[in-house]
């Protein structure tokens, strides 16, 4: 295997912040090379340099022996490097195939798009890489988030790249699509390409990566063959310190009191007949393939979108028709949404304004706000959650993903609601913060909170939740606990007809 991509002493500064400080990276053709590191370690910046979106302040990059210095993303693409970012570059009102071939559509003599040629090329691409079934003429806005991620990958593959960069590409995918993508990556490597794989999921990394490079604080701290290193070492290198465990110790803290009781709960045709009890002090996981009703469950409980059936909160029936009816103080429900940037935070406002957004009445009398009481609440929450922010006035958009998530947690905790609905709370978050959030969840459970928790990462569900309720086709397929709470059992319940829970 020949060395294909070699980056030496890459440096990048943004004002006073050093994103990369003489980082090195070396990868060969025909391998899957994982790039690991906490958020803020410099991975994204490095990838953006490779993708031509950002220019380094120092260092050199060579591609197949020649200097590589793209002036813009288009040049990078032409050199054969195709990135797939977490932030999708897809357009909702165009169709799947229009998106894949955007700006590169086959043209006729009168400069119009040749629809048939485009369709054939799309189908050929799908077949060649064994894509999951998606109709090329569907409007993108119809697709689920996972399907859109798949199309984003299709878009990158359509250029037949030498180097495919996957940045947290599986965070939006369900187990099935994930497996497909991992197979795809290995296949590309076997065909002689280079796949650079960024992920926070060590399990996946182990499955497909040949070698691993670890960034920390903008520099390269380690590079090894995957089979020659254990997870402990990797995590220690990523964090710069030993981390005792990713998953906190799980003590049974559930009481008999039912915090949230659902009977016959449903949302139009996407969710039906859900009978579920969430107990005080319990972390109840929700699992299932993408699009099988999880999002509807969480959003309907919070009042977004209609629902049918009965909901009892702390023993009393409650109708929730909107978030305002959900957030009623101690007896309310609080949602940490899937899309933190568009649903959870006002990015252009300060951490303080975001934290107190849901509880303005707590520091308001006769309609007039009291800045001192607000500051007290804000300072307390920043300290409790260890939110890394310069001052409370810092804009939420400038925080790292993990800290942004903490702000959203803080916002919900301030509402004093004791039932928390957490929808994929650790998506795209670095290992260190993930551990903190898991610990927070168990601590809150110990204090008597009732937590409903959805994650697309089965390992998380298995290790953090007390019980796991599996949804299949909008119905409850199984409730697993104890020994049955395993990834294998969850998958079986999610995919195959089994005995009822």
């Amino acid at each position, binding site marked *: 295997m020949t060395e294909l991509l070699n980056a030496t002493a890459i440096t990048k500064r943004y004002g006073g912040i050093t994103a990369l400080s003489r980082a090195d990276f070396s990868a060969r053709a025909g391998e899957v090379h994982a790039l690991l590191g906490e958020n803020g370690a410099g991975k994204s910046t490095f990838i953006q340099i490779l993708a031509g979106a950002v220019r380094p302040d120092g260092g050199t990059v060579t591609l197949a022996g020649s200097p590589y210095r793209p002036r813009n993303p288009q040049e990078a693409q032409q050199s054969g490097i195709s990135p797939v970012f977490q932030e999708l570059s897809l357009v909702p009102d165009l169709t799947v195939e229009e998106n894949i071939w955007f700006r590169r559509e086959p043209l006729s003599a009168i400069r119009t*798009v040749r629809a048939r040629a485009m369709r054939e090329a799309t189908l050929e691409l799908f077949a060649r890489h064994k894509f999951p079934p998606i109709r090329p003429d569907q409007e993108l806005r119809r697709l689920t988030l996972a399907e859109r991620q798949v199309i984003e990958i299709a878009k990158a593959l359509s250029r037949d790249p030498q180097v495919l960069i996957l940045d947290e590409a599986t965070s939006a995918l369900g187990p*099935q699509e994930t497996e497909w993508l991992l197979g795809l990556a290995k296949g590309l490597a076997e065909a002689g390409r280079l796949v650079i794989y960024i992920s926070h999921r060590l399990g996946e990394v182990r499955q497909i990566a040949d070698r691993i490079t670890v960034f920390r604080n903008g520099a390269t701290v380690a590079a090894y063959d995957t089979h020659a290193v254990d997870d402990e070492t990797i995590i220690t290198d990523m964090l710069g310190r030993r981390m005792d465990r990713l998953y906190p110790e799980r003590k049974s803290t559930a009481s008999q009191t039912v915090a949230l009781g659902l009977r016959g709960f449903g949302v139009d045709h996407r969710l039906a007949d859900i009978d579920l009890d969430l107990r005080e002090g319990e972390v109840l996981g929700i699992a299932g393939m993408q699009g099988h009703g999880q999002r509807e469950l969480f959003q309907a409980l919070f009042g977004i979108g209609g629902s049918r059936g009965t909901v009892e909160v702390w023993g009393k029936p409650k109708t929730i028709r909107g978030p305002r009816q959900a957030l009623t103080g101690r007896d309310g429900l609080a949602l940490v949404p899937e899309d933190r940037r568009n649903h959870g935070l006002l990015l252009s406002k300060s951490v303080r304004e975001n934290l107190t957004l849901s509880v303005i009445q707590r520091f308001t009398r006769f309609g007039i706000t009291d800045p001192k009481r607000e500051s007290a609440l804000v300072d307390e929450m920043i300290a409790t959650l260890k939110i890394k922010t310069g001052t409370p006035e810092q804009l939420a958009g400038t925080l790292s993903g993990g800290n942004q998530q903490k702000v959203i947690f803080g916002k919900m905790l301030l509402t004093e609601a004791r039932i928390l609905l957490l929808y994929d709370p650790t998506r795209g978050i670095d290992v260190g913060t993930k551990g903190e959030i898991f610990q927070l969840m168990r601590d809150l459970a110990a204090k008597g909170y009732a937590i409903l928790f959805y994650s697309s990462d089965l390992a998380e569900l298995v290790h953090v939740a007390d019980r796991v309720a599996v949804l299949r086709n909008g119905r409850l397929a199984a409730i697993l606990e104890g020994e049955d709470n395993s990834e294998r059992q969850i998958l079986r319940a999610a995919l195959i007809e089994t005995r009822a829970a």
Partner: protein
Amino acid sequence: MSIVDPTSRAGIAIANSGAAGTTPRRSRAAIWKSALLDRASLIIPCVMLVALLLVYASLRDGVFTLDELNLDTAAAMTLLLAATGQTIVLLRGGIDLSIGGMISLGTVLAATRFGTDPGQAAAWAFGIVAIGGLVGALNGILITVLRLQPFLVTLATWSILSGAAMIILPTDGGALPSGWTMFGVSSWLGLSSSVWLLALLLVFWFWFKRTRLGIAIRATGSNERSAFLSGVSPIGINIATYGLSGIFAALAALYLTTQTGAGSPTIGKDYILPSVAAAVIGGISLFGGRGGLVGTMIGAFILTLIGNLVFVLEVSSYWQPIVSGIILLIAVLASSIAEKSARRSLS
């Protein structure tokens, strides 16, 4: 040391051969319903137009004749041309208020510069279109470079263009060669020149929306960030979008002079908001990315027909804005309800 249980792959293998992993199926009725709701933004204005035509026909004879088509198309054409440019801008997710100034300027320049020599008139006609394009391009540049909202930039350029028009011709007047105004009433094969123009516009649209630029404009309106990430040039797309709008505004001005035979420094004002209204009634989303010219044409005809109806009913012409406003609201409300239902039945 692996965290994932490798035997879980057995489950995946079973899944790959089966149907699991896809979203729950919908009934046929639901599929039809959603297909209908999808096209609601075009169906609603069609229904409105038909309803209006029927009302019109009940009050007057000879509504569904060629003559009527010729007359109505001529009456609607100026708005149609202006609305075409506005449609392109709205698809981009912007808005162009400066067409008001451009239309005024266009008529004023034509009325004062055409003279009697057809060669000179032709040269100036091209010149006016070129000015429209250049001013539009300038709009695009200012919006991109100054990073200002299109609303504000085109508000300012509207003011500037109106001022220029007023300086060149302070009050309505001027003159246009008779050959030019003859074009306004000429016909070929029984159809008026405006109907042929309409056909030409439709041909243009069916071509344009299939070009890379047409797709790029719609994409940028749909999700600007994605479009830029995919290689669309921010300044290029704005220059193209607003340049086209300026060109169509100039064409609208030229057509208007074939009907009125004069120039007016203030006439453009009356076309700005109706051009937006025609597009919105026709199903264009103000957010960008959705809609097409056919809808706008229907919207323009609806607005023109309301004027006819008010005239035929012999009520005060002041009723026209009232009815137009109500129709606009109904169209938008119906669209919004349809979209909400469509979204709900989406899996």
